[in-house]
Structure formats: C-alpha cells, structure tokens
C-alpha cells in the first residue's frame, strides 16, 4: 500500500509570515501538535510544531547543564511566551523537514518516523508541492489493518 492512500489530503497549513502566537492558537484549536509551513505555491518551507515552540521559550542551555528541576516558572520563560506574539512562524519553524513521495511504501514511512523521530511527515508530489500529510497514528492504523487482513 502506498502512502497516498492513507494520507490526510486536506492539509491545513500556515504561511511563514504568520504570527507565531496565532499559529500556536491554531494548533490548539485543531488539537494537533504540528503543522507544515508552506509558501504561495504549496511548496514546503518548514514545520511548526509544539516542540519548536517549547524550544523557543525555554532557555537553550537546559540541555547542556545536566539534570535539574524547575520549582517555579522563571520570568524569562514567561517573557518569551508573551513575546511569542511579536515573532513570526518563520523565526521558530524547523526548516530541515523530512518528506516523502506520494508513492512511498508504508513501511518506509514508518522507518523514517522511527529513525528521524518525526511524528508527522508531509507528502509531496512530483513537483514538490505538498499534497498531504501522514501521522504516526495513520501509519500504525494502516499497518495493523493490513496485517490483520492477512489470513493466518
């Protein structure tokens, strides 16, 4: 089975120039954790996810100083969260995005999701336009449906 059969075709996307806070509100309204960022020609320019927002508001050094536990919310984090409405999606988004072709096999998508730690992968057509998006849940569902339909 190819990924184009299970992908979500009606892809909500955001423009790179969108306000980051509005983009975050969109994520929360739709109850999804990430959206692709596209330009006017439906070409992929980045990925905007909850993870990227967290990365943006927390200090960058937390990964380098080892283990510690916050007991309070530092003012700096609060300020950065407030400042989210002054920056654009393009300042936060991840530009290095894994994508797949419409005709990619399901297992290959699964492999990518595991090795590249991606929860959702945009699907592109031959001219590199975004035509769909597939999530971890979609892949799992499809794989298990396929396997359960095999006669033992």
């Amino acid at each position, binding site marked *: 089975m190819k990924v184009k059969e299970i992908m979500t075709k009606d892809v909500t996307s955001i423009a790179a120039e969108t306000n980051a806070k509005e983009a975050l509100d969109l994520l929360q309204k739709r109850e999804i954790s990430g959206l692709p960022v596209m330009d006017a020609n439906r070409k992929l320019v980045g990925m905007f996810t909850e993870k990227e927002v967290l990365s943006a508001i927390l*200090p960058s*050094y937390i990964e380098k*100083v*080892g*283990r*510690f536990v916050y*007991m309070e919310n*530092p*003012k*700096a984090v609060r300020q950065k969260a407030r400042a989210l409405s002054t920056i654009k999606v393009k300042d936060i988004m991840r530009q290095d995005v894994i994508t797949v072709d419409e005709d990619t096999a399901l297992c290959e998508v699964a492999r990518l999701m595991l090795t590249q730690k991606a929860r959702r992968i945009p699907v592109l057509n031959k001219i590199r336009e975004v035509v769909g998006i597939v999530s971890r849940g979609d892949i799992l569902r499809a794989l298990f449906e396929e396997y359960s339909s095999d006669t033992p």
Partner: protein
Amino acid sequence: MNKITFKFILLFFLVFIVGFISHKVGLNTQQMLAVSIFSASVFATLLFWDFRVAIAFIGIALLLITKTVDLENMVKFASLEVILFLVGMMVLVGLLKEVGFFAWLVTLILRIKNLTAYKFIFVISVLSAGFACCIDEVTSIIFMTAAILEICDYFDVDPTPYIITSVIATNIGSSGTVLGNPIGILIASKSGLTFEDFILKAFPLMCIALLSAICITMFWYRKTIKILDSKIKQSLNNEILIKLISVPPEKQIKLVLSIFGLTLLFIALHHRLELLLGLEANTILLSVPLISAGLVMIWKWRKAREYIEKDVEWWTLLFFLLLFAKAGTLKYTGATDVIAQKISFIVKGNPAMLLSAMLWISALGSSILDNVVLVAAFIPIVQSFKDLGFALQPLWWALLFGGCIGGNITLVGSTANIVALGILEKERNIKITFFRWFGIGLVTSVVAITIVWISLLFLPIYR
C-alpha cells in the same frame, strides 16, 4: 564579491604575508611551509570558525604530503596523552551533570545567609574561577552563565555585568592549576612542571589577580549591583523563600563530589606518587582521570556510552589534537628555533626583558586568538629558548598567565567569552558591543597582568 570569497582571499593574503616575512627572516623551505600552514589554520579559525575542524584536517594532511613532518612524529606531537586526560575529566563532568550538580550549584548560591549583591558577585567570581581550575572552560562557563541567568531572572535584573564578571574570572581562574583548561595540562606536560609547582607558584598569583579583577568589577558595576541589592532585600523582606530550582538528592551529589575530589587529590599528589613508584613524569597525572572515568563508567554502565558520546567534546578535542600536531611541527622543522633566536637577539639576551616580552606578547596574541591556540603556538618557541641558555621556568609562567588573562581583553579573546555572550544574546537578546567589553576587559587585564609581571620579575620564587 560575496563574503566567503572575500574571506578566502583575505586568508590567502594573510598567509602570504606570513610566508613572505618568514622568508625574509631566514627560514628555509620546510620551516616556511610549517609556519604558513600553521598560520593558515590559525587565521582560518578566526575567519571561518565553523569550519575549523575541517581546515585542521586538511592542514595536517598538507603538512604530511609536503613532507614537512612524518607520520610518526605527527602522532607524537598530537599529544594523545593530553587529549585522553581531557576525555577522562569530561566523563567525570558528565557524571556531575547527570546527578544534578547544576541545580545544587544554583541552590547553593541562593542559600547563602544574608545574601547581598556584593556577596553575590564575589561568590560567582570565586566559583567561576574555581570551576575553571577544575573543569574545562566551556563547560564551566555554560554552568555559570546558566546559573546567573536563572538567578538574575528570578530577581529581574540585567544579567550582563555578572556574566562579564564570570567570564573574566573564568579566564583568570584557568591559569591556576594543571586541570581545567587544556592550557594548564598542556604546559604541564610539555614543561615538566608538576601540580605542586602550579599550586605553589601559579595558584597564589592567580588568586591575587582574581582579587584585583573582583575589586575592579565591583567598582565598575557598582550602580547595577546596588539595584540587585535592593531587589534582594525586597524579596527577603517579603520572606519569599527562594525556591527557583529544586535541590537534588544530596546523598548522590555528595558521593559524586567526593569521587571528583579524590580524583583531584590524586592528581595533586601525582608528582610524589611518581617519585615513590619510580614512574615516568606525568604518568600518574594522566592516568588518574582515566582510572576515575573507568570506574565511573563501570558504576554507571548503562550511561557510559552516553557520557562518551555526548559529554566528551570530540569536536573540540579533535581540533586540539590536530592543532598540537601542527604546533609540534613548528619545533620539529626548526622554525621556532629561528624565531627564538631572532627574539633573543632583539631582547639582547636579557632574561628579564625576554620574560616581559613573553608575558605581554602572549597576552596580546591571546586577545585575538583563542587561549589554547595561542599557548599551543608559543610552547615550541619557549622550548626553543632552552638551547639558547635561558631559564625556562619563568617563561612558562609568563606564557600561562599571558595566555589566560589576555583572553579577557577582547570579546573574541577566548572561547569562554564567545560561548557566554552567545548564550546571553540567545536568551535575553542582549548584544555586547566590542567596545563595551573592551573597556572593562582592558582595565582588568592590564591590572592583573601588571601584578603578574611585577611578581614574576621580582619575587625570588619565580627565578
């Protein structure tokens, strides 16, 4: 003409000038090549910082292909023992990080009785210098910068003065012992000076220099310190318990700190132990971290791989490895002998003048180049002075202090500066201009170096 092309052409001409001068000074072909390729690597790290490892790789290959150095010597000069020392220490630091040392540090500062702003700045200076004495400057500055940012955030003050102070203290502190910065261990392994020598001769001087720097920064930043002072009094008056970060399990920390302390102890006693066991100089010095790290990796065997892969700064270590090899080639080809001769001629064979020259030139050089790069470059030159009949010990101290303190003069003088300011910019969007730094950097450095200068010249302990 785009930026990259311009930088490349600039690099070409800088190296060309060096090569040309070395020809005029009378170096032969091999020596000129060694000097040119070495300076190409050094300038390249200035102009193309992100590509420094790549350039180091190519540089060393060029030296081999042009027959400037042979394989066996290249490996010898690369000073694997120093690198392994650093690897061992980095593993220990990884362990410290994992048991929550950072948190312990922050809470330690906040739990000081009757905290005032002056105590705060004193404490962070001493801690920064202390860390720089024990672990590598990048890790220690990240710790201190993060701690300062969290604390200043809590009190809602501008962290800049405290970070600058911390960086200054770090650079000064890295001259105090054999550990810490690669500089100490590098000089120790090449000069034969022991940990005891450092403790007796370098450490006290470092403390005095540090004290002078603390006084200057306290005066320089007195206005902002007053602001912090009032804020601290406010929160103490409201009896808000300072609980920014939770205190990690003390038992584990105490255990790890004692392991670390024991390691330091054995390193301190390395000379005595080597004499006792009849071992080659510096054997124990370099073995102790390896033993410690090995034991730690057995204890935490599940995390051992992670320590090695994540906490050991391979990128930086590789760069150092190749840098040392290239510096060694300078000595091997005799280029540094020629340079040493010329310098000796200029100072008319006067040891006092030579000492002063070494101190100030290495300080100057270190203000532009990274500390380690400068020291690696000058070590062969100092070694060459031996054949000219100069007493080497004072020269080593001059190089040590000049190289470390000189890193305080400009923004780019040391990796610690660059890392700290990078974090500051990223987290608080504060950009320090060259001249803002240069002001306090120059004053503290000049005072500190002058103190060192007078001590080295006149105190008999340094003869």
